[in-house]
Each structure stands twice: as structure tokens, then as C-alpha cells.
């Protein structure tokens, strides 16, 4: 198994994933690690129905998805892994998920969040989670779609502190 992209995206599976990232990275397996969707039968069915045939979709809790990714059950799949937020990504890494890189895709506005890019809005808890993730040796960058330039977390953080 090869994790070709691990991404935080609160829209989970959506247009940018299906039309941009999947073809660009030739991913053939999408794993959604999200406790809420894992319990939402209807949403799970619709989510799977939107993915082209030939691409495996696994929707499970953060814990179960992390465990699955620590086994060799997925064979030589090219995995695109989605988390809805930084805290889930951190949890997964703390559970033993080995990640080299983490992409920040969409983390949208909410109360008390500070904007750091077009689609990234963070509160202090998000910043702490991302810092912890980076400190554990994961390279964190922000990039909405493959055609955009990557921005590394450290420079985003420095810019945020200045503002």
C-alpha cells in the first residue's frame, strides 16, 4: 500500500478530489476516516455512489481506518486518505499511522477561526494539532488542487503569527 495523498478536507469526497487529485495521482482507493460519516448510513451510500467504479472506497471511523492502514490488507493500492479536521489527523498519527506528508486542502471558516489562505481557516486548537503533526516528522503543506503551488506549513504559521 502506498498513501499517495493524505489530506485534511472538510468536504471529504468532492469535486476537487474526484476530478483533480484522483486522476493526477492515479489513486485507486479512497479512505475516508471520519467518525460521523462512518455512522451515517445514507451519507455513506451516497458518498460511495459518487466515486467511479474501479476505485475502492472505505469509509470508517478514524480508529478503524488508522488500524486498516497499519496492516497490509490493502495490497498495492494507491491510497488517497481524507480527514475532516486536524484533530482527526493528529489522532490517527498518534494511533500509529505512518505518514511522510500531510496536505491541508479545505478547512473552512467557523467562529474564532483565522484565515490563512483562500480555503484554510484555523483556530488555536487547529494550529496546535498541525504543529504536533509537523513535530512528529510529517511534512505539512497546503495545496487545494495539484495545479496550485504548495505552501509549507512553517511559512503559513509565520505569516499567521505576524497578522
Amino acid at each position: 500500500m502506498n498513501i499517495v495523498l493524505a489530506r485534511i478536507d472538510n468536504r471529504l469526497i468532492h469535486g476537487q478530489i474526484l476530478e483533480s487529485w484522483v486522476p493526477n495521482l492515479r489513486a485507486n482507493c479512497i479512505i475516508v476516516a471520519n467518525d460521523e460519516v462512518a455512522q451515517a448510513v445514507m451519507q455513506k451510500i451516497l458518498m460511495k455512489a459518487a466515486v467511479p467504479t474501479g476505485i475502492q472506497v472505505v469509509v470508517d471511523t478514524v480508529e478503524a481506518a488508522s488500524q486498516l492502514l497499519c496492516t497490509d490488507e490493502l495490497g498495492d493500492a494507491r491510497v488517497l486518505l481524507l480527514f475532516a479536521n486536524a484533530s482527526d489527523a493528529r489522532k490517527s498519527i498518534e494511533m500509529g499511522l505512518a505518514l511522510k506528508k500531510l496536505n491541508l486542502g479545505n478547512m473552512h471558516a467557523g467562529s474564532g477561526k483565522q484565515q490563512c489562505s483562500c480555503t484554510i481557516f484555523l483556530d488555536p486548537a487547529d494550529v496546535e494539532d498541525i504543529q504536533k503533526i509537523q513535530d512528529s516528522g510529517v511534512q505539512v503543506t497546503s495545496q487545494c488542487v495539484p495545479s496550485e503551488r504548495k505552501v509549507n506549513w512553517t511559512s503559513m504559521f509565520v505569516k499567521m503569527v505576524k497578522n
Partner: protein
Amino acid sequence: MKGLIVATHANMAGELLKACESIIGPLPRSRAISVRREDNIDEIRKLFSDALEAVGADGAEVLILTDILGGTPANIGMSFMEPGRIDLLTGVNLPMLLKFFNSKESLSLNELAEMLKAYGQQAIHLASDLLKRQV
């Protein structure tokens, strides 16, 4: 009186309704929803619930037309589905929109949705094929 919501990425929905209006005139009980990259999910859900309230007033049936299956407009639109009263069709195009306004009162929501699904596909033509048919 059926209602219509067109929901797409960027401003395509509003422009499609404008194009439709320029061909057949005013479009009663219709709303466009533009989903932008930077919009958060709660904001988009609010756009849908406001639009549904407006075009689906008094329990009227509503058809939601969206661009791509699996895209955010369709993903969020589907969460408002009420079989028989609110349904959603992807792959919106102008022929489908025109047909909606020209046939919406003669069919039930299910019949209308099925018909538009087929019509939207049949309305796509390749010019060189049309030419071949004439020869």
C-alpha cells in the same frame, strides 16, 4: 407549482438560469446556488435551506439540478432529499432547464425527473453526426 434550484460550482447556476430566461422569459420559483471554494459547509447548507423555503413554499415539489455527482453542490443537495417531494438530478444543461419549465406542470416530480434525466442526455449532439443523417 413546482420549484427549481440549480446548484453548481462557481457561478454557472446563475448564468444557466439567465440563459434560460433570455430564451423563455421569467422563471417563477427558481433559485441559483453558487458554491465557491471558500464557502464553509454550514453556509452552503443555509443557501439550500433558504432556497428550498422560497421555491418549495406550501410543500411544493422541488427539483434540484446540480453539475457533477460527487461535487459539493450535489453532496449537500442530496442531504435535503425527500423522495417524492424533493429530488436531485446531476449533469445540468440548458436543454434540461428549458424542458423543465416547459413541462413541469403536466408531470409528477418523479416523472419529470426521469424524463429530464433522459432528455438531458438525448439533447447532446455532434454536428458531424447530424450532417451524416441528412446525407
